[in-house]
């Protein structure tokens, strides 16, 4: 009997704490450990392209996207830390939006749909521009 009561009590405590850790969607509470998405943005010739903003759009999820600007580094690499959810990604390389984009790669684009980001996980997502 005591063991059952203890199990029930533990369950209630775990439920309460887990509820605190889940999100309500309007940001009032906290604790949404991020997942990580990283990779490279590549030109058709395989070269990494710098200066391209990698934009995630939240499709499913209840924590808004942090509005920082993640732009590819010199080798075309990028890393996003994002709240758990499903995202569509868009990459648009334009010299108007970032002078670091080499002229020959201006106007190239890529996208990825329904990319799932899970808490604590790291996944690789490369983009091939066209």
């Amino acid at each position, binding site marked *: 009997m005591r063991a059952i009561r203890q199990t029930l009590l533990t*369950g209630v405590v*775990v*439920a309460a*704490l*887990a*509820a*605190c*850790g*889940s*999100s*309500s*969607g*309007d*940001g*009032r*509470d*906290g*604790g*949404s*450990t*991020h997942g990580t998405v990283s990779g490279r943005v590549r030109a058709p010739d395989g070269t990494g392209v710098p*200066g391209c*903003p990698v*934009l995630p*759009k*939240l*499709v*499913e*999820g*209840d*924590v*808004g*996207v*942090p*509005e*920082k*600007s*993640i*732009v590819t580094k010199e080798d075309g690499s990028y*890393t996003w*830390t994002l*709240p758990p*959810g*499903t995202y569509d990604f*868009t990459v*648009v390389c*334009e*010299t*108007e*939006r*970032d*002078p*670091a984009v080499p002229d020959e790669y201006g106007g190239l684009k890529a996208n990825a749909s329904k990319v799932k980001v899970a808490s604590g996980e790291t996944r690789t997502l490369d983009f091939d521009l066209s």
Partner: protein
Amino acid sequence: MTRLSPIRRLRRSHPLAVSLVILLGSLVAVPSQAVAHAAETPPAAAASAEEEEGATDLAVGVTSSGEVLEAPRGTPTATTETIEPYTGSGDITDAGPNVSFEPAPEDASTGGGDVSTDSVIGADNRTRITATTSHPSRTIVYLTSSDARCTGFLVSKDTVVTAGHCVHPGGTGSTSDFYNNFRAYPGKNGSTNPYGSCGWTQVWTDTAWINDESEAHDWGVIKLNCSIGNTVGWLGYRWQSASLNGTSVTVRGYPDDKAYATLWTHSGSIQYSYTHVLGYAIDTGAGQSGSPAYDANLYAVGIHVRGAGGSIAYNQAKRITESLFNIIQGIT
């Protein structure tokens, strides 16, 4: 600083059980969009959740050489609820040493280029500010770091307020994970840096952001190595415990869906104001994290942090609470 919260400890020791409970919890959860429209009386369950996550903001920081800083203690604010804005002298010599007029690494040209983003709610109502050397636009900084580009705003001669996720990834439990190489460009306008740029000496965020990635505590403060605020001035900031619903605010910053490093603005009313979070339908874009949400008297009441999308109806700011007000005041 490697403390883990009870929630994270449980998640690590009993991941299956916690996942099951979260799944069950999500089945009975109130849809967030409905909550977002529920005005200013949060349900008791949500209020207790916030309480669990820590109702007050609590700071931790590091210096540019990696030394961990103790939480600043602001002046008791029994009567003080505002810090006044300042227009600045306009004289660059008042900024002291360390102001650099080297161009940003990516500076070369500017032009057009509009791409819609998720945090543009309905039509894109943002307008470009070309007179970036006017106050208060010149108090807003284009902020670069080892991680990303953001926006920030001056609140003293050498203190920039921004989003927590612009200074630390959150949830790692370690002060060694702060980003670095911060550089602030006040009033940047494309490739033109009218007041040069400054480096940093200290960076701060909330222990709840570092340990738990709590969206309720997503704020950051950077101490600059120059006194450019003497020249460009700063925004005031204030807190109030009463609702901010209906308050008209402006969110102004550097979105990356527009021409390179250009300053954009949009104003609107606060739709909901919880203890730590403000929601509004003011259009923003990636890169505007850390933008001020300031009222008609140039007092910041929030720090823009997140865009709408998924089940999130509104763009969001971290509200300046009494405890955050005291922290900022203590750092400045």
